[in-house]
């Protein structure tokens, strides 16, 4: 079977890969482009650990056909930190013990970023809704919710107004 070429922006860099026609974006990111940030948990859309942002919108990479991402701008957890400077969400996750085994963390951070990019002043209910598609088997969710609310408070004031 002929491979299909796919080109997109990944965390700000132009990237290209050859994919099998039915490959998911997750397969291309992990196997083709060595971005191991998004994880393969279930491959069914239920766990959320493969979450990425495609043109700013939250998507599940395991259920996204890679070939449909041609020309898109994709952000993964690997691009969240600015060099050595962690994103406020990452710092808040550390400070609030929001990661234990860490398997859900890439998806939780991405879902939380999708929320704060759109709504820098979320309520607790907004946070719960934003991470509704992400399963965590360790923390009981409360530290994650607290971390996201805390990160929102540290965003520059103009973003929250």
């Amino acid at each position, binding site marked *: 079977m002929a491979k299909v070429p796919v080109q997109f922006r990944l965390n700000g860099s132009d990237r290209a890969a050859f994919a099998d026609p*039915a490959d998911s974006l997750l397969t291309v990111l992990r196997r083709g482009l060595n971005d191991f940030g998004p994880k393969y948990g279930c*491959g069914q859309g239920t766990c959320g650990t493969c979450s990425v942002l495609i043109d700013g919108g939250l998507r599940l990479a*395991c259920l996204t*056909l890679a070939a449909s991402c041609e020309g898109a701008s994709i952000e993964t957890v690997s691009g969240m930190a600015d060099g050595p400077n962690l994103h406020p969400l990452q710092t808040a996750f550390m400070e609030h013990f929001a990661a234990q085994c860490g398997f859900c963390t890439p998806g939780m951070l991405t879902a939380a970023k999708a929320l704060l990019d759109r709504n820098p002043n979320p309520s607790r209910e907004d946070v719960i809704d934003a991470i509704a598609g992400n399963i965590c088997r360790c923390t009981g969710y409360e530290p994650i919710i607290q971390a996201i609310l805390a990160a929102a408070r540290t965003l520059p004031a103009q973003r929250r107004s």
Partner: protein
Amino acid sequence: MPLALRVVQSLSEAAGILAADSRTTLLSGGTLVMRDVNEGRLTDGTLLRVTDPAWQQIQVSGTRIELGAGATMAAILAQRELGFLHAAARAVGGPAIRNMATIGGNLFAAAPYGDFAVALLALDAQVMVLAGYGSPRAVPIEEFLAGRSRGEARLVASVQFNRPVAPGDFRFLKVSRVKPKGLSVLSIATHLPGHASRIGQARVAYGAMGPLPVRARGVERALEGKALDANGIAAARAAALEGVQPVTDAIASDWYRREVLPVHLGRLLANQS
């Protein structure tokens, strides 16, 4: 032979391909199709993508509404004018799923999925169907769903329906055990024009109470011509189970679904859900 991919620009071309080749699977939002690929249930044939932007269009003109089959639940939620449909769109999965899941795909989703299709059934939607090359034909949603269970290969271009006249004429409820995101124990949509005084043509639809979304004809009959008062609601509850064949799955048994349906129907009608 592994899966191949074909990308076409026009809906009519896609419909022609689907009609000609039974091994072609249309990919819309992909939340169910890619699952089948990942799980090894779909391993050969061709995936077909359509890039026609018209497929995703939402048109609200006066009282008539047309939703492109490729429009997502998130796109519905982004339209203030479609506020009456927000509860049904929000019922589908979590935020990432809603950014991907389309109206067209929901019409094909097996129970306990298909929450949005339940809303469309209560709205008496017309499904605009392309069966091969040519222009779309309007098929009443009930007839469309019956055809779906016979496995007819057709492409849905859009769905059309009239906007409910008064706020509160249309109501939707999804009952799930996990909140805010969980699969349906059941879902109920009601369209009761004139509910404040005398109900005109009543439409009540259920999800997860059969293999397909179904109309609750007994409830519709019980409500027609009545007011939505204690007597009307009691009559509706008494007829709630007529014709239902609930599924048993990991979410709930058919027994449980039967037990709780009249309670939730009563609450929805009394606006207490």
